[in-house]
């Protein structure tokens, strides 16, 4: 059994490394700037979806607060860059620290309370989003124009820098997600998801585990916000605090398959691509078609797209049987 596990891990690691290398050299192969920016947006969304999954998919605690961390990360980076003249690359870890701090603070308050944990947590994340966006708007409502980053070797252009940053972040998130999935820590998180009281009964410190998941998740989102803000350069509250950043990662993960590590990746890539394609042509009709397609997909793939991979065509034909 041990050998098999090691081998599978090896397969996964190799595939990821290969994929990462290919994507890393893509800009050098002369692909168009548009594809670079499109892929950048894919990496950001996948990071968001994967990080959401680490928290909500693994522990079962639904978070609506990704927007709060994303926006705060973006502004933490922008503010320290613009007002304190801190070099951009250093603002990224600062952003991560800020969002981790926010998560820690929130977690300390909400994870300890025993009754109605899930709902309380969900509400606090909703509240956090509003609170952080208002604080930012009232202080920096004008938006911040960040200082230009200079292009340097081995990067061939400024967007290339952000592309690479986003790619690294994305790969890192996926790796963390897989590592968690395979590890003891991850098992404990799943145990919490399935039945928190039982998990605690067998000695799992649910508070500690939830805090870890939450902090990792929000740290990644903070980084993502900083990278995104740097790429946009003109960081405006309404943009980075858009509810889309809370909503879409949830949809992507559910679409791809919650609770597995590959689900959010699938969902992220597919939805981002579809949204990009849908931009042209008759926007309104495209959206209606898109919406209808999503409905159809969700009916026939109840566990998300990953269901298709897991069990093949045979399963799709058999309806799920539930007790009523």
């Amino acid at each position, binding site marked *: 059994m041990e050998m098999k596990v090691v081998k599978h891990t090896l397969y996964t690691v190799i595939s990821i490394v290969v994929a990462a290398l290919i994507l890393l050299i893509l800009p050098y192969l002369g692909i168009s700037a548009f594809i670079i920016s*499109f892929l950048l947006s894919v990496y950001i969304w996948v990071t968001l979806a994967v990080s959401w999954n680490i928290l909500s998919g693994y522990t079962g605690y639904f978070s609506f607060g990704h927007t709060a961390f994303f926006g705060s990360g973006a502004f933490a980076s922008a503010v320290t860059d613009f007002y304190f003249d801190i070099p951009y690359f250093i603002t990224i870890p600062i952003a991560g620290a800020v969002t981790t701090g926010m998560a820690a603070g929130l977690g300390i308050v909400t994870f300890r309370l025993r009754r109605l944990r899930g709902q309380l947590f969900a509400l606090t994340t909703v509240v956090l989003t509003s609170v952080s966006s208002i604080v930012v708007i009232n202080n920096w409502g004008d938006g911040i124009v960040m200082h230009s980053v200079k292009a340097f070797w081995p990067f061939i252009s400024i967007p290339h820098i952000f592309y690479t940053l986003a790619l690294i972040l994305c790969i890192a998130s996926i790796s963390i997600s897989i590592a968690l999935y395979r590890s003891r820590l991850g098992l404990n998180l799943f145990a919490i998801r399935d039945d928190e009281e039982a998990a605690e009964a067998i000695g799992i410190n649910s508070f500690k585990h939830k805090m870890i998941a939450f902090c990792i998740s929000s740290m990644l989102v903070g980084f993502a916000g900083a990278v995104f803000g740097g790429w946009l350069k003109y960081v405006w509250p309404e943009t980075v605090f858009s509810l889309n950043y809370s909503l879409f990662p949830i949809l992507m993960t559910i679409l791809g398959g919650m609770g597995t590590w590959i689900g959010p990746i699938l969902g992220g890539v597919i939805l981002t691509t579809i949204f990009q394609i849908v931009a042209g042509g008759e926007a309104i009709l495209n959206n209606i078609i898109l919406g209808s397609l999503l409905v159809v997909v969700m009916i026939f793939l109840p566990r998300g797209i990953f269901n298709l991979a897991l069990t093949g065509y045979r399963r799709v034909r058999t309806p799920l049987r539930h007790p009523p």
Partner: protein
Amino acid sequence: MQEKNQENTVKITRRRAISSAVAAGAVVGVGIVAGLGGYFAGASTGGRVETITQKETVTVGGQTVTVGGQTVTVTNTVTQPTTITTTVTGTVGPAKPVVIGYTLPKTGGFAANGVIHDIADQVAIKRINDTGGFLGRPVERLVYDDKSDISQIPVLYERLITQDKVDLIVGPYATPFIAAAMPVAEKYRKVYIFDSYTLPKRATYEFAFSSWATGYNTDIEWPTLLFEALQNSAGKLPKTLVVVHNTHPGATFVASGVPTVAEKFGIEVLDVIKYELGTTDFLPIATRLKELKPEFVLQGGLVLDESNLRKALDKVGFIPYGHSSLWPAVGAVLGLGPLGDGLISQSVFEAHIPFTQDAEARYFVENYQKLAKEAGLAYWKADTQSGTSYAMFQILREGVRGSNSLNDEDIGNWLKRNKVDTIFGELTFDGPNNYGPMKTWIAQIQKGEQIVVWPPDYAKPGSKLQYPSPLAKGY
């Protein structure tokens, strides 16, 4: 929240799961990349609107001639016995269109103005094509839907410029979107004309041009014009005022200049109230205003704010003698009925004399209003929003024709040095950040119609700024 599912048990070993997952991922990944590649490699199917093809005749004579953008080669071959065969290679067909690319919010929170701009632009393109196109070539738009989502802007503009390889671009709608696309325009040195930008001091790109002549110092110039209008047209200045503005950067910018200007005119600013963009409940603000009882409320708001505040004021029982704003959705204010009368706002264009003395302005008004009604818009009058969008294309047109070139730098340099005749009159771009003098006027809703009332050169003949408002109450 827990997932409870009972399923048929197919023995799923970890190995199967992982391999299947990776395989699935690979299949999906390849599929997506292939699909993407195929899709984007081919001609993109964006929203092409309106093509009028023109056929041009070519006189051949043994040389290479350029026809509407296509190069044809004509060769004469001489063979014994003396026969001269003239072969024309290359196609002489419909001229290749000039494509102008940009985005508009067709869906999402800004779609209300997005649809207005879209219709105005249709009229503008038709006018261009009816008058000879750009250098003899027909003009088309390629418009993407940015879904009112700023993060789409850089990607979509990159796509337009590098993927679809459009000939020219213009700006999207609304200040933050225009700001987001500016770095992309700058990177590719594309001339960048836009219509709805409210931060003149941030338009630092060399070839950025605003069709809305807000004036570089709009924070000082607009309030000054407003108070001048009150003084000279209404004949009366308020003694006290309250500034109510939202967190939109442009609104904040204008509001920031008010206290200084008010002081010059001897008006006391009682308070400055800031509210969040997107506020729907104005009752608290209205209650506060009722407490303060200023003679004038200067609102820095946009779209639905004015309508909501005015309604709230009515509910609260306090309507000030004067209420001005910046960029309301006129339709929303008119929907208030008689309550909407008296609201002052910015305007660069209204469908009345003297604007309509210009032939092209009349053309614009007629065609825009026809299309707007057909599309089913509730508010179909041609005014500032539609006007600035139309003018944006006018400026591009004059730039192209004036410089006789489709090269962005040529166009940009020409615009900087020349005057452009637009539906609002003559615009120049010779000031800081390419802003000319302010050409934004004082308009007011009177008897259910929005008209320009000041300065006299642009006011509807015989009109006056109405102040104080007969609706005032609660003092």
